């Protein structure tokens, strides 16, 4: 049983239909810890020591956030800057994150097709998330492809529910160690694996 930490950052959680559904779907999952940064640090004063202890206690680290202007919310970046520091997370003496799995879970307003060379956003999601992939590599973590939910702007309630339960299933499979990370690495999306399974 792998322990999962979801580092969640959403500056306007109250207004987010999809993220609320996602968070709601994992409420009672064993071994899953939801860590809501904007709730914990309303003044952005991240407690570095406490965060590092939390990371050390988990095997899989998920960053869940709305993908906005191709980046992450400010507090999550602040968190990364402060917590994943040289000498702890990377560097010759920084081994704390080594071997853990690392996975971005994002929601985007635009549709999946718009994230392509010839699409509106001109880059694929994996390309746009390259800094995260490299961060994982730097820290010796196994990078899982992103679990991305596209088109949230126009999503119908039924679809929201479907995504939420898919997310829940994926977390369960991760926790139960039902995945071989090596087999996943080549995927564009982690959700694709979920769709195959059905």
């Amino acid at each position, binding site marked *: 049983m792998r322990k999962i930490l979801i580092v969640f950052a959403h500056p306007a959680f109250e207004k987010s239909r999809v993220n609320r559904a996602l968070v709601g779907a994992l409420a009672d999952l064993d071994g899953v810890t939801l860590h809501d940064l904007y709730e914990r640090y309303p003044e952005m004063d991240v407690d570095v020591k406490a965060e590092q202890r939390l990371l050390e206690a988990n095997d899989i680290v998920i960053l869940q956030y709305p993908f906005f202007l191709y980046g992450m919310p400010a507090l999550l970046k602040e968190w990364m800057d402060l917590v994943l520091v040289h000498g702890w997370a990377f*560097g010759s*003496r920084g081994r704390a994150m080594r071997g853990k799995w690392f996975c971005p879970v994002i929601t985007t307003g635009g549709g999946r097709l718009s994230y392509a060379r010839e699409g509106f956003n001109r880059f694929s999601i994996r390309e746009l998330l390259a800094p995260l992939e490299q961060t994982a590599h730097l820290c010796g973590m196994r990078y899982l492809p992103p679990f991305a939910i596209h088109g949230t702007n126009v999503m119908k309630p039924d679809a929201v529910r479907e995504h939420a339960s898919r997310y829940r299933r994926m977390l369960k499979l991760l926790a139960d160690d039902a995945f071989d990370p090596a087999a996943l690495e080549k995927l564009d999306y982690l959700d694709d694996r979920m769709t195959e399974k059905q």
Partner: protein
Amino acid sequence: MHEGGFLFQAFVYLTAAVVSVPVAKKLGLGSVLGYLIAGVVIGPFVLGFVGEEGQDVMQFAEFGIIMMLFLIGLELQPEMIWKLKRAILGMGGVQVGVTALLIGVAGVGFGLRWQTALALGLVLGLSSTAIVLQTLNEKGLMKTDGGQNSFSVLLFQDIAIIPILAFFPLLATGSPLDGSGHGDGPHASTGWVDGLPIWGRTVAVLGVVAGIVLAGKYLVNPVFRLIATTRLRELVTAAALLLVIAITILMAQVGLSPALGAFLAGVVLAQSEYRHELETSIEPFKGLLLGLFFISVGASIDFQVIAADPALIIQLVLALIVLKFLVLAAIGKAFRMSYDAILLFAFALAQGGEFAFVLFSFGLNNNVFEASVVDPMIAVVALSMALTPLLFMVNEKLIRPRFGTKERVAAEAGVIEERSRVIIAGFGRVGSTVGRFMQANDEEATYLDIDPDNVDLLRKMGLKVFYGDASRADLLRTAGASEAELLVIAVDDPEKTIEIARTARKYFPHLDIVARTGGLEDSCELIDMGITSIYRETFDSALRMGSEALSTLGHRKYNVNRAMKTFRKHDEQHIRELAAMRHDRKTLIRETKQRIEDLERLMLRERDELHRDKELGWDATGHMSDEGHMRDGKNR
């Protein structure tokens, strides 16, 4: 015994109440049943302590019902009644009408004259406001659908008394008595209007009602303000009692139901800022007098009549309850209530009411009934009332668990006043800012303040402010502390803050508390009580001033802001630690000094070390000294 008569009576009643109610509550029977049983025990057929003077006691006791209706009125706002109009008129009207008709038909079947039978139907159609509301309140069922609908029907019944009283003389068998004849019941008219012609009476009635409304609107607030400035609590209580008694007398003078008058006055005063104070002052009297009323009902059950033909009485009681139950259940169904709500509604109202006693004696005097009908019927009504708490239990323990669906609290209906989630005690400089902030975020708060002038001013600005001392548990309760989630204590007297916190902790332990304090000493007191959200009134402003000062001196704003948060965090931490050791003055002073130095050192170190946590990643020295990392980088 005769000389000490009154005291002896008081002794007997109070003993009965004090002994039986706790026992009944322990057994899960509820206070109403406890009182009723107490009444039976001290009544003429068991111990015989009371009974002969029943009439006097009844008058006192019915004053309890009047006060209850006054308090109900206080709880309601006119727009709430308006919202309830469908339930009141629809359900109430159908219930009284259909029940009266069915009982009337049955009565004719048993050989009564149709007038008597119809009158009997009207009387028995009524239910017991006192028992039902008390029991619903005690069980916390008032806000459920079933509770709400029961309340609406009871309200209709209480109003219906008036037309019924007016209608009775028309049903009289013999020659109608002259006006002075129906002076026996406490609700019957004995006043000066009897001498007036019909139109004169109408004018008098309308005048009194208008007078109550106008006085409630324009007179009560200034008078209570005047009284409040004396800061004598008992004077407020006296004034509140005086108000209710005055209304009672006025209404009796014009031949209206005093209970209805009190209810009306309550509704008028529901907007007043002294509402909570009135409620709080009258509440204990209401409880006692209602208890007295229940005891009297118990004592007035005539076991001789029952013993004369027990089978008949039992059959009549059962018939009454079953008939009313069926009618009520059908109404519930017709008005699309949920299954559970129907059960509660039908079980709650399936008894005769206290007004039956009044109407029976009124009807007797007006030749509507003969004594041969009234005597057993009084026993039937009293027994059916006594059975009500048992019916509630039957529903709760046997029927609902088996057949019911879980009833939701009627949140969307929200007919009875929406309670605030926040109570703010103290509406001065601090409380008003907290309040405005709440309001700006759509959290309607209830405010309590002790300064009458302040309350008056704020009311004029349209805020929901009430006069009263928030350290009183009863006032907190009437302000809705049982349902609220949070209490903000923003009074500027630290001692008062602690007093309020202590009361709230004791009586409403579920409440979260956010408290304003003066200094260290008071903060420590609050920490001892387990309160964690404590704000020293000047601390944050002082810190902000300090920050401003630093940045004026040229410190970078971002760092100043961080320094402020660090300082605050450590200072709050220290207060908690100091709270434990503060009783030893010497240690306290030593430790405090030590901690101030510690904090100073910590802040300086943070500055010199370029914020260890924050800037490690940006500081190249760390990386350069890390051979492994540099090599790693080169290799790639």
